[in-house]
Every structure is written in structure tokens, then in C-alpha cells.
């Protein structure tokens, strides 16, 4: 099968997956306890008042009817109107998505740097106390959940040594001359380093909290791969040719050992985006995850649907990108 056909086939799979997610989320959130109309009933509301509010928000129709109306809208780019914000769901979701993507990518970069460094240090110093320290650090980083790392970071860098911002995405005092919601990227492109520093200062703790567990996973897998690669014949040959141990690890072993780690990073990235829900809440970071929690608390069904669909879209796109990247890097898969 050609690469083009593979791409088309996977796009079809994506569409089916998204439809499945849409069906599940639509029906499940209407079946679980928690009626959005009951949430907004004032004291003394009569049966007629309840009926009037239900009709106003379209909950007076059967669930299949509601689904048909909603799906028809979605196919035309209308995801409905948020019950709490009274704004189009798509606008709300798209305005928050960049914050979550920037945070996730930053966390991923930190995780790669930290994990890569620990893997290389552990491999270079294998059999020594340094390797043991790396292994113990990995163990601790993995066993503590990201939100707990968040609390530790708040205590350390927010309270005891207050050098980073504790909450939000950017300082309210700053005026942002931006046209997109990708503040970090736009501040870089516009050479507004003052805003960029402020954004990074807000982003650092949540990104680090998200990155620490992933860094440990990367370190563990990459170190293992490196160790296995170091026993291969071509690496031994490189040693006999007089390469130093650092050169052997970085130039010869690393390019091969990194391949399985790349796949893992892709898969873990989707988990990392899922982790933003709690971390964004903890740091009051104005992303999609924080909005998701409010939507669930307020039973804002249209907004919950929009956010879940967006998360599902991100997950499927990232998974497909990982597949494609892996296929491009590995000719056996490309032709298989």
C-alpha cells in the first residue's frame, strides 16, 4: 500500500474514531446524574419555569433528536452555545487550545531535555553511584503524580523562594498586542521578550510538574535502549577505531537507541495533554483543561462535548503523526 493510501486510510479511521467519541460523550453526559437545568433553578421555580428553561436550552427534546441537531450543527462548524458563558463553543475551545498546546509542548521539551540528560548520564556512568542516583531519581519522579509535583513546586518556587508566578498564564498588568492566542510563539515572532519572559515565568512550574514523570519514563527507556545498543557489533567496532566513550554513546549508539523512545514520547504526549486538566486547575492556567473542569462542574453539556471532541482530535492527530514519523524513519514499516 502506498504512503498516500495509508494516509487516506488513517484519516478515515480518525473520522470514525471521532464520530464514536462524539456519540459516546453525547449520550454518556446526558445519562450520568447532574441536570444542567437543575443546576440553574432558582428557589421557588415552578414546574412551568423548569419546562421553560428546558425548552430554552433544547433539553425538552429526546436525546436522539438533540444528538441529530447537535451533529448537524457540528458538520457545519457550529458546536452549539455554552450554557454558562453564552458564547459559541467553538470560539471558546479555540481560544483556550493554544494555551494548552503551548504548555504541553513546553512540558514535552523539558521532559526530553531532563530525561535525555538523565539517560545519557546514567549510561555514561553505568555501574557507578551516578547510575544508582539516576535510577532512584527516576523511581521517585515516576511514583509521585504530576499534581503533587505541582504542589511541591508551588511551595518551593511560589512561596518559600517566590521567583515564579503561581497562577495564570500572563500578568494582568501586561497589555498583549497579539492577534492569535499562541502568546508564546507570537511574543517570540514579535521579539517581545518582556512578554515572553512573563509567559515563561507563568508556564515554568506547570510545565515542569507535567514534565517530571514523563522525563523519568524517557530516561528509563532511553537508558535501557542505549545499554542494549552499546553491546551491538558496530558499536564495538567504533570503539576499536579509537572513538571515545562519549563519542560512542552520542554518535553511534544514540541515533539507533532513540527510535523506540520517539514512539514512546508520541504516545506519552497524549497522556501529558490529558494531565493538563489537573495541572491547569492547580495553577489556574487558562487552558482547555481548566475550562473542562468548570464545564463539568456546571454541567455545561455543549462545552463538555466541544472540549472532549477537541481532546479526541488532538489524541488522534498526535497518534497518526507518531505513526507517520515512525514509518518515515523505519523503511520496513513504510513498505509493509
Amino acid at each position, binding site marked *: 500500500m502506498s504512503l498516500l493510501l495509508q494516509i487516506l486510510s488513517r484519516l478515515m479511521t480518525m473520522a470514525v474514531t471521532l464520530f464514536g467519541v462524539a456519540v459516546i460523550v453525547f449520550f454518556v453526559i446526558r445519562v450520568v446524574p447532574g441536570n444542567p437545568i*437543575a*443546576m440553574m433553578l432558582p428557589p*421557588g421555580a*415552578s414546574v412551568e419555569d423548569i419546562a421553560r428553561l428546558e425548552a430554552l436550552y433544547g433539553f425538552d427534546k429526546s436525546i436522539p433528536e438533540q444528538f441529530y441537531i447537535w451533529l448537524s450543527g457540528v458538520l457545519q462548524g457550529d458546536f452549539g452555545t455554552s450554557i*454558562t458563558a*453564552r458564547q459559541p463553543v467553538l470560539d471558546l475551545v479555540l481560544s483556550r487550545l493554544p494555551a494548552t498546546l503551548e504548555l504541553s509542548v513546553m512540558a514535552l521539551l523539558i521532559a526530553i531535555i531532563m530525561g535525555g540528560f538523565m539517560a545519557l548520564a546514567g549510561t555514561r556512568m553505568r555501574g557507578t553511584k551516578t547510575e544508582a542516583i539516576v535510577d532512584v531519581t527516576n523511581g521517585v519522579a515516576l511514583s509521585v503524580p504530576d499534581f503533587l509535583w505541582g504542589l511541591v513546586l508551588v511551595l518551593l518556587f511560589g512561596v518559600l523562594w*517566590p*521567583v515564579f508566578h503561581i497562577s495564570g498564564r500572563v500578568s494582568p498588568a501586561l*497589555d498583549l498586542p497579539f492577534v492569535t492566542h499562541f502568546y508564546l510563539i507570537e511574543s517570540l515572532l514579535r521579539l517581545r521578550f518582556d512578554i515572553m519572559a512573563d509567559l515563561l515565568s507563568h508556564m515554568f512550574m506547570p510545565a515542569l510538574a507535567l514534565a517530571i514523570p514523563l522525563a523519568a519514563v524517557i530516561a528509563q527507556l532511553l537508558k535501557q535502549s542505549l545499554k542494549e545498543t552499546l553491546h551491538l557489533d558496530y558499536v564495538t567496532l567504533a570503539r576499536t577505531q579509537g572513538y571515545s566513550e562519549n563519542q560512542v554513546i552520542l554518535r553511534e549508539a544514540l541515533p539507533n537507541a532513540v527510535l523506540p523512545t520517539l514512539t514512546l514520547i508520541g504516545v506519552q504526549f497524549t497522556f501529558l495533554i490529558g494531565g493538563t486538566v489537573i495541572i491547569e486547575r492547580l495553577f489556574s492556567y487558562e487552558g482547555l483543561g481548566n475550562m473542562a473542569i468548570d464545564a463539568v462542574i456546571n454541567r455545561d453539556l455543549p462545552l463538555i462535548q466541544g472540549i472532549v471532541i477537541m481532546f479526541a482530535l488532538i489524541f488522534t492527530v498526535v497518534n497518526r503523526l507518531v505513526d507517520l514519523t515512525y514509518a518515515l524513519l523505519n523503511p520496513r514499516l513504510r513498505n509493509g
Partner: protein
Amino acid sequence: MTVLTRRGVLLSTAAAITFAGSASTTWAQDIKELVIAYNVNLPSWNPTVGASAVNPTIQGLYQSVFDLFIAQDTDLTQTAGLITDWGWNADKTKVHMTVRDGVTWHNGDPLTAEDVAWSLERAADPEGGNPIQFIWSTIGNFAIDGNKITGDVLRFEPTIFKWMSFLTGYVLPKAYMEKVGADGFEAAPIGTGPYMVEKYERNAFVRLKANDNYWGGAPEFKSVTIKFVTDAAGRVAEVESGNAHVTLEMPYEEYDRLKGGALMGTAAPVSDIGMIFFNDIDAMTDPNVRKAAVMAVNKTAIVDRLLSGYGVPIDTLQTPDYAAYDASVTTPYDPDGAKALLAKSGYSVDNPVKFTIQTTRGFKPKDYEIIQAIVGLWRKVGIEAEIEVYEIAKHYELRAADTLAPAAFYNWGNSIGDPTTSTGFAMFGPSPHSVWDGEDLTGMIGPLWGEADDAKRIAGWKAVDRHIAENALVLPLFQYVQPILHAPGVKVVPHASGALLPHLMTRA
């Protein structure tokens, strides 16, 4: 291999200092711009529609920008606001209101009586989406003469003017809203309130600028930033680090830990109570069980031990600052009496009466722990209650469908202090908020809804509360106390409604 050079170290250090230093730019020592870490998000700027319109916690934000029809003092008493004079005619068939002169909207336009009448009509429109429409629709056919408004009473509602200081009771700008539409108003809201919206980032913050022309006097802090920090640990960290000057609603232990140090604390009772609904099903149809369940609860001990003393035990659904509070109605702690009552129905510690109690966990301070303690107290007298934890959304749904468990913990707010919006809606069988369907109580409450004589009306509600207490139809627990932490440079004035209002804050 990368070699660590001196130049590299210096560059990295400089970058780190610049990066980290940016955090300290807002930590002003003298308070020029007041920063408040608020406990809820503001989903919408329209205070009259949607779920946020009936969320009591958000009202403090709305009241910073918009004015209520009738203002409310910090002790819940009504006072002249945009409407300076109000009332009915002698036979209660007409209402009259006088609109304050000289008030301007944030865009400089003058407030008119037409704005007020339009806001009332808009709130009463069944298609408008105002959740309190059923109250606003009780008056209409307004006529304007200068700054005087008269209207017809379409259905007598004794609390109509009290609602003018409560949920959705805001005056909105007619001409501006018609010009910019709902989306335009959401993007650039204006009111007549003490602060103007300067910048708003959804889910993040709102920056407010003082309205120096405010009819109630210009606020002392000219610039206020309200950050939405929904996580309690985050809010505490904000004030502890100096990133914010004021915050509210943190665990009482944290409040006690911090108030004596670099921060100051204010803790005052608010119009929010903890209570346990009794649904008249299963064991709760037995008066002995209900009365024993009430008598076995030591409210003072619960407040002292679980709420660190921050609460006021109550015996009816009225708190001491409500209009129908009657100190003579009491339900004393009496575990021996509870045992005796249960014995009359054949129950004992060895043969306990069994039912389920529902509660939230973490929705209100120590909610689950309080129910655990109550279940422990009940066990000692012969009541075995099984705890079921649910989300607050499920509570609303079950209550509206009258399918709550025999006992269910809830908190009830009533920031106008009227008995209709506490005992009335919570205990009147036909109300979707009540799960007690006893006809005797419905019969007592029914005539009070339309009682035109206020003294008679309040006396009637007191009699209802006495009947409820004597028959143990509900278990009132305590009035909540709102903890507020603030920097020493700010003087915070708490409001009994629970609204944290920046225009009441001054420099210490």
C-alpha cells in the same frame, strides 16, 4: 561532548535571572494596584441570564461593575441605591419607584428611569432566559414620569422589592445593549457600579478601573485585578507569596495558620447555612426517629472541632440576621432524650434504625467530615446511617425530582434574609427545592406567599419555623463563617451576603 565554559555559565545565569525576575514585577510593596485571588471563574458578564446569574459566589464580581436596583448594606438591610424610594400603594395593586438622579453609565451616558423600567421588563420576559423571571413577572405595565416609575402588581409578591437586591436584580443599560447586542455587551460590559471593566481574560483575570463618578463615592483603590484562582491551595500560595493582597475561602486551619503572621484575617458569618434535608420517606416518616436525629447532634461540638469554631450553631433555617429569626425556637442537644424517643419506636443501639444520608465531599468545608461526625453521634443513640457521597449536580437533580435519600446534607444561601427564600422554598412541598411534602406544613406556608401585611407575614413564618423545629422536619446545623486573608495594608469589610466587594476595601 558539551563543555561547560565560563561564558556559558554567565549567559545561563543572566537568562535565568531575567526569566525568574519577571515574576517579581507585580509584587508591589505599597499597594497601588489591589490584587484579589478569587475563588470562582466568571463565565459571563451578563448578570441576568444563565447559570452564573444564580451563582451566589459570583455576585461580588457583578456588584463591582453593575448596581442592584436597590442597594444592600453589609448586614443585608436594604438601602437606597439606584432606586432611592420604593413601595406599594395602600391596596398593594401598584408599585412605585424613584430613580436616583445624576448617575452615569461607565460610557458617560446618564442613567434614566427608562433604563430601570426596561431592565425590569427584560427580566420578566419569558423568552429572555432570566431564571428568576417568575418573580420579575409579578409586576409590569410601567409608566415613567421624570425619575418616577409606577407599575401594576400583576400578582402580589411580598418579596419583590427584596429580590431587587438579590439574584439577577441588576440595572442594565438599555441604549447601550440595544446598540451593541449581547455579544458586544459580553465583550465590553458597562454598568453604573463602582468599577469599570478595563480588561477581561476568561478563566484568568479581570482588571478593573475605579469609577470616579460613582454615585456612592469613588473607590479608594483605583486599579483592582481579580485573578480567578479556583484551587484553594493556589489562593493561599498567592497571598502567602505576596502575589495577591486579598483572598477568601480557604481551609480554616490554613486561615488560623496564616492570620497571625504576615497576613491579617477577617472571619464573619455569612448568609449561608449547613443543613440536613429530611425526605418524608422510609424511617423519616416516624416523628420519633426525626426528633431523635435532631436531638442527637451536638452542633456546638461540630462547629468547634471540625470548623475550628468558625460557624454559628442554628436551630431553624433562619440565621440571627434574618427577618424571621426567633431565638426562642431551640432544639437542644439531648442524646438521652434521643434514646428515649427511639426506644418508643422500638429502636436501640443494639437494634438501630437504618437509613441513608447523602453528602458532598469537598464542595463545602469539611462537609464529609461533618456528616461522618453526625453519623458517629447518631450511632451512639441507635441510628445507623450509611453515607452516600454524591456530586452537587446530582443533589440538585435528586432534589428537583424529590428523590433525595431520607437525609441529605446541603448548604442554603439566602442573602436577602427573607423567610420565603429560606424556610419557604426549602420546606414548601410544591417547591422543586423541597423534599418535605407534609400537607400540614404546606397548609401553613401556603397563605404566607401572598400575605400583604408584613408583620403578620413574618409572624407567620416564625410559627412555621417553630412547627418545623417541634416536629423535626429538617435538621439545621450552623451558619457558615467566611474566612478572608489579606495583607496588612488593606482593610477589608466583609459583607453578610458573602460577596467580596473591592469598593469596600480601603488602605489600612
